[in-house]
């Protein structure tokens, strides 16, 4: 037990748990804001995994650079996503995802 935090498997397990929580949140919640936060959780879990594997493979820094780009893309994604939430709220006066049924009718 004295080696917690020094094996890549422990980080993979933690990242998997975080990704699972994010995915379950995305599937179960119907509040669009919470769904966006769940997407952020999943992206963070993937980042953690990339950095952990990069710590295992110290010859280069490609994993960390990849995580850096994921952070940039996630920031862009959240800006556009929240703008779409505002436009959706303007249309429906609600942020529940099952109100987005315009294409059904």
């Amino acid at each position, binding site marked *: 037990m004295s080696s917690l935090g020094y094996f890549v498997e422990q980080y993979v397990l933690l990242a998997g748990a975080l990704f699972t929580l994010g995915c379950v949140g995305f599937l179960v919640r119907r509040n669009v804001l919470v769904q966006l936060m769940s997407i952020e959780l999943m992206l963070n879990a993937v980042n953690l995994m990339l950095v952990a594997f990069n*710590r295992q493979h110290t010859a280069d820094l490609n994993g960390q650079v990849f995580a850096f780009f994921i952070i940039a893309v996630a920031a862009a994604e959240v800006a556009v996503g929240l703008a779409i939430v505002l436009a959706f709220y303007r249309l429906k006066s609600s942020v529940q995802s099952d109100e987005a049924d315009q294409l059904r009718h």
Partner: protein
Amino acid sequence: MTVGNVFFVVASVVALFGAFMTIASRSPIRSAVGLLITIVGIAALFLMLNAQFLAAIQLIVYAGAVVVLFVFVIMLLGPDAGDGEGTVVRARVARYGAGAFFLLLSFGAAHLVSRADLSPTRFKIAPAGHGSVEGIGTLLFGSDVIPFELATALLIVAVVGAIAVARGKPHVRHQSKSASPTARMFNGPLMARDAQRPLPTKAERAAKAAGGV
């Protein structure tokens, strides 16, 4: 237990607690705080993994920008940002069924991995400068300069797109309810009361939910 072990356990418990708070809170502002807790926990884990630059970026971009943006939108929407009353039973069953199914899949995957015959190897001592600002900066302005510049272009486009989508046209004051939904989505003011359009009452919403299925 060394200091590193305690650090890892505390950071991972904090991250998991924050993630659970994010998906389980009824109020979205608590979800945002949960996301903030998770982000701080993951930044601590980045520090443990010799990724000092990424830990700083994680705190600046996520805790400083993304969570604040979420909080702004939640405050802008006011009480409407919360959960409404779920009306369609079938949809709720589908949502919880999908969540349970994915949870089951994850446990199955974890079980399969735990049965595999792996031989874990402890992290090697990292070379000096692994994950430092110098190391990452050399890569970003050296071999990875084209993706780096493309990322800046992506951020510019995202900012312009976000403004274009989120900006209501304030001079469109009197918007008829019969205007096309696309026009209302992109041209109207944010709050229905600013469009001289009364908010639907609870009874109206219920009638719409009952009749619109």
